[in-house]
């Protein structure tokens, strides 16, 4: 049963395995990240920045983060890797 669940959730969060999504936080604020489907990036709402995922590897270097445009801020439509594990 556990294995099936793991399989289903495997790619929640745009190619990031669940075990990874569960652990990741924003490198600056240490607050949760949410996955943004539209941009395929990880968003830290706490500091208003997004971090890219390149070849399945999240790039969580503060210097590689991009400032969010206004329309990208918490829209409520994104799926959070964290929520979907519940």
């Amino acid at each position, binding site marked *: 049963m556990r294995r099936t669940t793991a399989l289903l959730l495997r790619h929640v969060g745009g190619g990031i395995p669940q075990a990874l999504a569960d652990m990741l936080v924003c*490198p600056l604020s*240490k607050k949760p990240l949410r996955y943004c489907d539209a941009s395929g990036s990880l968003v830290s709402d706490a500091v208003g920045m997004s971090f890219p995922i390149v070849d399945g590897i*999240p790039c969580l270097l*503060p210097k590689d983060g991009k400032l969010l445009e206004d329309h990208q801020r918490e829209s409520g439509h994104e799926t959070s890797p964290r929520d979907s594990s519940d």
Partner: protein
Amino acid sequence: MALRAAAARLSSSSLRRRHGHLLPAAATASHAAFLHSHATSFGFKQVREDEKSKLVGNVFSSVASSYDVMNDLMSAGLHRLWKDRLISKLNPFPGMKHLDVAGGTGDVAFRVVERIKSVSHRATQGTLTDMEEDTHIYVCDINPNMLDVGKKRATEKGYNEEQCLSWVQGDAEALSFEDGSMDGYTIAFGIRNVTHIEKALSEAYRVLKKGGRFLCLELSHVDVPVFKDIYDIYSFSVIPAVGELVAGDRQSYQYLVESIRRFPKQEKFAQMIQEAGFEAVEYENLVGGVVAIHSGVKL
């Protein structure tokens, strides 16, 4: 070569007195950045703090593909034994969450996985247990080229990312993992290249659970009289030359040997680990101090 090293040493001390004003980049790059940046070391050179990470990045991008071959050559294969020693000190267990920082090529992570597999297979005679499924090793490296090498090697070894290994590009000084989330933290030949060692140590402390182990394998300081002289000649003459021959990159390996000499001595580093909050801090010298393994526990 010895002359060149001496010259580098001289110029670095004069640069330090002038606080890096002589460095061309400092004059041309943004003045605002310079105002807020302190001088730090890049090998024997003094550079701006924000520049060190860039320079270190260049070194590792440049050596990523030949990194493992060079490690074998430079240490006469000993780095394998040192890493094995690190793992036996870590004593990995099934179900553990482990973070390996600066381990892009996967050398430490693969060993942790192997050890856990062998431990749990002995216990359960080959059946995959729930505990083993919970095992997860996170590899964090600041350099994407090193991570690419590691990911490729993982595929070759038949490791399935979803099962137990994850790769993250991140900074040891600003980790992107939750507080109290890891049972173990290792950093092998990495902390020397970090700009602020104390920030990396406090991040290690933050991500560890109570009872979690911190282990650091690093090239250190030799204090055995004659052996020290031989080691110095080897470091400053042989390594840069081999680096040029094999990796086609003398400067990166010149940086390597200089950065080793700039790293705090064993006792001082142990004290820094204590200051970060760790308890039961101790270290073990291997090969007379060519490398040292420092360890601590978060209580």
